[in-house]
């Protein structure tokens, strides 16, 4: 029988839930808590499929430390001017692709919807997350998170994390 083991379910659950929390912190504008989902020595990038599929590494956002994530949020709060808007992440099911020791590699489709002041909601960005998640600690954390997005025409700007 091809039913999953308890451990497979636990790993999938952990990977799905840390993604759900990631979305929740962004959508609820609790951005200051967001970097805590990452390892100190992490990599976070948001890259277009257009570039990724050509093996070009130019990303819209590229951070290789938790400090850079914090800087992004501080900048958003203090420096950047952008239209008032909110995000809503709708995530599909997370699929564990492999595990290596305490590191789970998982993939999750996402769409980020945006609502501006006019009260209308539109598709802002869709794509997939490819994540490496460390499940060795008390709570799962991203060792790396890569958002590979379809929507290579970015609507106005990208100021919040995807």
């Amino acid at each position: 029988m091809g039913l999953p083991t308890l451990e497979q379910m636990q790993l999938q659950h952990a990977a799905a839930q840390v993604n759900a929390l990631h979305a929740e912190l962004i959508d609820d504008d609790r951005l200051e808590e967001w970097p805590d989902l990452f390892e100190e020595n992490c990599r976070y990038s948001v890259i277009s499929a257009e570039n990724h599929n050509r093996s070009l590494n130019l990303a819209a956002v590229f951070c290789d430390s938790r400090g850079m994530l914090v800087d992004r949020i501080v900048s958003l709060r203090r420096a950047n001017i952008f239209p008032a808007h909110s995000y809503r992440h709708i995530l599909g099911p997370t699929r564990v692709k492999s595990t290596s020791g305490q590191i789970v590699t998982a993939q999750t489709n996402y769409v980020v919807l945006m609502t501006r002041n006019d009260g209308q909601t539109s598709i802002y960005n869709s794509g997939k997350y490819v994540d490496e998640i460390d499940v060795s600690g008390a709570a799962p954390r991203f060792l790396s998170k890569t958002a590979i997005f379809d929507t290579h025409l970015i609507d106005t700007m990208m100021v919040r994390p995807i």
Partner: protein
Amino acid sequence: MSIRQQTDAFDQAPSTAGCRVPYRVFTDRQYYDREQENIFKGNCWSFVGLEAEVPQAGDFKSTFVGETPVILTRDSDGSLHVVVNRCAHRGALVCREMRGNRASLECVYHQWAYDLKGDLIGVPFRRGLKGQGGMPGDFDMSQHNLRQLRTETVGGLVFASFSETVESCRDFLGPIVVEQIERIMCKPITVLGDQRQRIRGNWKLYAENTRDPYHASLLHLFHNTFGLYRSTQTGEALMDANKRHSLLYSIAASNDDAADKQAYGDSRTFDTEFKLQDMSLLKGRQEFADNVTLVILAVYPNLVLQQIQNTLAVRQTVTYGPDEFELVWTHFGYQDDDAEMQAIRLKQANLIGPAGLISMEDGEAVEIVQDAIVGEASATSYIAMGGGRAEDADHLVTEGAIIGFWDNYREMVGFDLEPA
């Protein structure tokens, strides 16, 4: 744009034929553009908000007059101001938030700053840096304020006008409207929240709808079945002297179920089989000594003030083009409402607004007209219930106030544009 004199049927005296409105006024962009100039920026007062939405000095609210973005502010001296939300420099929105509190209005683009009246108070690098740059020597700050609208309040409702020549707001509204506003705004209010409804139709179809006591018991089953409103009730349909505005009111205590059953026969909307499991929805209080339980006060061009049972609300129309508008419902209660009264208002809010068990149909009523008149260049509607004249009625089986609206529209915009 060429304008031709027309002598179509709809321009002739409606003595026998009723009122006919060409459908293209709902679809043709030319009418829409002229409405913006002649109505919303013309000799009218438009509703922009409630004083209670900007209670403190520095409070502001972004809204619209027609399609033009404006800001309602309260200054440090308590005075209210309405300015166009457009920087005098290069045209950027000055307020990008829906509401908030600020000491001054500052454009983010080049940080030109205005006080809460809209007067320019600061221009960065006005005298340049180290002798370079700077504005021309004859630059006069006072000539670069935000566009300031005339602003007046009646009973806590704030109105604004682009016109320097229009009569005072009170005179524009007339005694019947002022009396109703003051009746409902009889004591300090508290805002309960907003609802926003996007309707895919022309804003004037909603102006008709809210001047139409004829439809209300035929379209809305909730009204009729539960006796909240029936055309058989004691009530009136009145207009101001200029017939711009319309007051519809009725008294639910006048219901006579047996006679009403006869009047409505087997109408879809008189459904004695329809029962509620939880009648707490309709539990309310008699709030006004005059026993009036329903008021729809349609104020030209963009406001409805309503009392339906214990729901009190203003509805503001924002235009988005010939075939779309937004309806902003701001619900309120009184500051001295006790806890039970607050609960009644929040529960009865189920009756109105975009999810309102009574009112949701009005969105559909507008859209089924808009959908049906697409591409129609010459046909007209026919409005004659009650006699086909813009006359007051001491009953509710009339379309007279709709004709009053169109008489004013014809004067301000006309039906005479060439088809595009």
